């Protein structure tokens, strides 16, 4: 299997198919992160598409100062937060109903049990403030270190620790209620 650097170099050299390989390699990670951040399948697919489009257009600026994976998480996080912000503004102005996209018929899960389990977790995550949610997801689901999360979010390690502590506390309270 070709490594990321090789694929990027081939893409920048004009081989468009290499981009498809990069996209296929990372699209699930991007989707999962977006889904946990934005809370539903349709919005997550939209964010995933935006992320890959940004990657397609900006890959020439990527200098491998971090891993490609870190860079992709960074873009996904930023895009997800922007997406949520825009959605809130639209809801605030009455341009979109908050519950409008929650009953999506489309999904990617193979079993119904999985779907139920995931929806429960996704709903719990949506009860955390967006930035606590971001740290919680990266730490708990992606099992990243604070240093890696710092590279993605740009926040100091101290801030990340405090965010994660508050996220854990809130998550415990939420699961107490169940």
């Amino acid at each position, binding site marked *: 299997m070709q490594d990321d650097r090789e694929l990027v170099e081939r893409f920048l050299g004009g081989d468009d198919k290499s981009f498809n390989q990069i996209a296929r390699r990372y699209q699930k990670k991007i989707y999962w992160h977006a889904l946990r951040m934005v809370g539903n399948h349709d919005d997550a*697919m939209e964010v*995933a598409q935006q992320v890959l489009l940004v990657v397609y257009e900006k890959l020439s600026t990527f200098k491998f100062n971090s891993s490609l994976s870190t860079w992709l998480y960074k873009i996904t996080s930023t895009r997800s937060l922007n997406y949520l*912000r825009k959605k809130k503004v639209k809801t605030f102005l009455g341009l979109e109903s908050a519950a409008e996209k929650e009953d999506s018929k489309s999904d990617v899960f193979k079993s119904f049990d999985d779907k139920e*389990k995931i929806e429960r977790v996704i709903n719990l995550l949506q009860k955390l403030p*967006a930035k606590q949610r971001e740290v919680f997801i990266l730490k708990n689901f992606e099992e990243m270190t604070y240093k890696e999360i710092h590279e993605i979010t740009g926040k100091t390690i*101290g*801030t990340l620790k*405090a965010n*994660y502590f508050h996220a854990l506390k809130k998550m415990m309270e939420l699961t107490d209620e169940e």
Partner: protein
Amino acid sequence: MKNRERILKYLSSTISDTEAKKFEKELASSSLLKKEFDEIKQRLNKLSGNAKVEIKTGEFNKVLAGIHERKMVNKPLFSLKRASAFVFVITIFALVIFRSQEDDSQTDNRTEYDFASINDSSLLNDAADFIELSELNNIYKVDHSFQENIIPDEYLGYAFGENIITLDEIDILLTDNEYDQIYNEIMQRTIL
């Protein structure tokens, strides 16, 4: 669970190395602490367990197809649809601005969202996103040198009254009641 706070501090590494070692020592000797610790770990594992869920890959072809479509479709800068949307948004903003100016001169008649009366926590989080940090600065004196764009719910952990609290002091100085007090004070502010 009386040890929950300590366990969460340990798991989030918000305690010093010395305290962490002390905690680990106690964890090895106290069956009660061990039981509570395992329960919390189990709950967290249960939450992250879905990371292994199998998903259909076919659905993702839509993502790649969508990118291809977006790349290929050369949209004109101002299509009729976009122009209409633009005019609509401008009209909405003009109305909002007009209304707010009108409301300024007739304070008694203005529409207010009293976030303190909202009990739903997710709505409170939404509301918190609309409070500008600069506005919060007028209420609390905060050291922002280590943080940017932080939203109020997180920010609440860092400041109390006129005192500047550093990150290391948060958990020592702030009790749960004080945390609630700050939260309520901010949420009682009315926002247009």
